[in-house]
């Protein structure tokens, strides 16, 4: 006798609703994983100490060499780049880390796979918690810079539209880069743990996050110009500190519109590349039986 299960019409949803639900639940899961291991106060301290310490290393280095002359434009350039770079480490690495976390640590990736959800949307949703933490860290770092380190951030001078549009495009681009990395991690046996860190490290060095690209040797400077984060950080600096950004020649020949166009183009490119990469890696990982693998590497 054949049995037939009928799902009531009220419980059926269309593709868009399914994607939204996947994203929402995944974001909530990511939040719980990141935040519920400690009480809120301990967690808040944990979430702030690491980024503040990273910023403080650079502040101390700068302070030693310049005898504490924090009013120089180069300091604001470095400080803003370093602060917003937190998004790169958190969002990009966060999305790719979800694969490692679910497969190696919690060993539940196989259960995620058999659930009726869209996996790339699930992975992108896992990056939401990282985005929230990164936003808090960036805000606190900037606040410390303005209050204690003479960062000339004037809220009335900020180009808010440019800032919000740049931030939105940049974060989406980083999440898509993270999805690409996460897809590759699906196929990696060794070193998957360092993948996000390696890419973030390379971007940190070559994207002009903490020094103008002119400081790099000329033969390697071109790498910075093919990195999307370079353009993103330039836009953020122009939006927040237009006078200071104008003093550095790296991308001075490009207008804000051109930079936004480049960013948008790169985001579309990464969107296509991320989904193609995911489709390929996902198929390979299923064929090779990697979805439920635990390497303990």
């Amino acid at each position, binding site marked *: 006798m054949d049995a037939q299960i009928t799902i009531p019409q009220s419980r059926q949803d269309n593709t868009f609703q399914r994607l939204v639900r996947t994203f929402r639940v995944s974001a909530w899961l990511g939040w719980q994983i990141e935040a519920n291991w*400690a009480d809120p106060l301990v967690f808040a301290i944990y979430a702030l*100490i690491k980024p503040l*310490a990273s910023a403080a*290393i650079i502040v*101390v280095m700068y302070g*030693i060499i310049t005898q504490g002359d924090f009013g120089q434009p180069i300091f604001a350039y470095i400080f803003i780049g370093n602060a917003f770079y937190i998004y790169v480490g958190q969002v990009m690495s966060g999305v790719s880390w979800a694969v490692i976390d679910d497969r190696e640590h919690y060993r539940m990736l196989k259960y995620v796979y058999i659930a009726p959800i869209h996996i790339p949307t699930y992975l992108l949703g896992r990056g939401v918690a990282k985005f929230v933490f990164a936003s808090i860290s960036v805000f606190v770092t900037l606040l410390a810079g303005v209050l204690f380190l003479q960062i000339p951030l004037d809220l009335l001078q900020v180009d808010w539209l440019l800032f919000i549009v740049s931030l939105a495009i940049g974060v989406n681009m980083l999440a898509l880069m993270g999805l690409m990395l996460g897809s590759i991690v699906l196929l990696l046996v*060794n070193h998957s743990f360092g993948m996000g860190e390696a890419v973030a*490290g390379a971007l940190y*060095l070559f994207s002009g996050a*903490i020094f103008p690209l002119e400081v790099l040797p000329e033969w390697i400077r071109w790498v910075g110009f093919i990195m999307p984060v370079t353009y993103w950080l330039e836009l953020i600096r122009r939006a927040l500190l237009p006078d200071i950004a104008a003093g550095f020649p790296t991308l001075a020949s490009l207008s804000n519109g051109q930079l936004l166009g480049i960013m948008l183009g790169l985001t579309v490119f990464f969107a296509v590349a991320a989904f193609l990469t995911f489709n390929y890696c996902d198929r390979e990982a299923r064929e090779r039986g990697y979805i439920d693998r635990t390497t303990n590497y």
Partner: protein
Amino acid sequence: MTLTAKVTKHSGLRLFLMTVFGRAYPRMVGMLRERSWMLWEIILPILGVSAYVFIYRAIGAPEIYIGFVVMGGAMTAFWLNVLWSMSSQLYWEKEMGNLSLYIMAPNSMMGILLGMAVGGLFFAGQRALVITIVGSWIFGVSYEVVSYWQLFAVFMLTMVALYGLGMMTSSLFLLLSREAWHLANLAQEPIYLASGFYFPVKNLTFWVAAGASIIPLTMGMDAMRQLVFPDGSSLGFLSVDIEIAILVGLSVLFVVGAKLMLDYMERLAIREGRLTESKR
């Protein structure tokens, strides 16, 4: 029919040394068999070192600071090794189910920890050496050693104290669950800052530097910088002799502390049934 097999039993010092070797062996042989480790473990720190070097170049720092960064980058190998492969190792072993086997086996847990330390030191030492060579070559760092025997003494004492610290904290991690990963993660950048991995620790003011001296690398790096860089002594926190004396004290404190803590925590973990728990 009785089946008998002759089993050679070891005890005392021989058993202890075999335990040390047995635990160190997988780390040493693992590194030699899987050589891609080396590439990976060198590229990442070199990227970090390069970023800090270029910050110094962007603000016109004297060349000695480039050498400080290269040395700091090399020493991160030891700190990361102590953090992730010593302190939190018993937590990982618990997660994988090996910890109960260690406890059941008729050997000394101190032998296990020492073996982890020896294997880790071998691994991190190679990584640090390569970072130093590659970093010095890329950025043209020059060295001028004041006293080789003092340099050797400082390095060895730093390692004994550092791995002693790792052995001591590993027993604390026995009691931890999910928070272990987060705590180890938290002890990276703040320690890089407090211990002066990329700048002379003296610049953090006396009391901050004195407080950070509980981490053996703070004293070790400060002393080594004074011994290997021309004019390094002018940027030192304390004199090398005093720093050697402090490192001797830290070595004794942490190794003895490791033994006491391990005995206490092992009893506590057994009593509370935490040796086999796995709270992911």
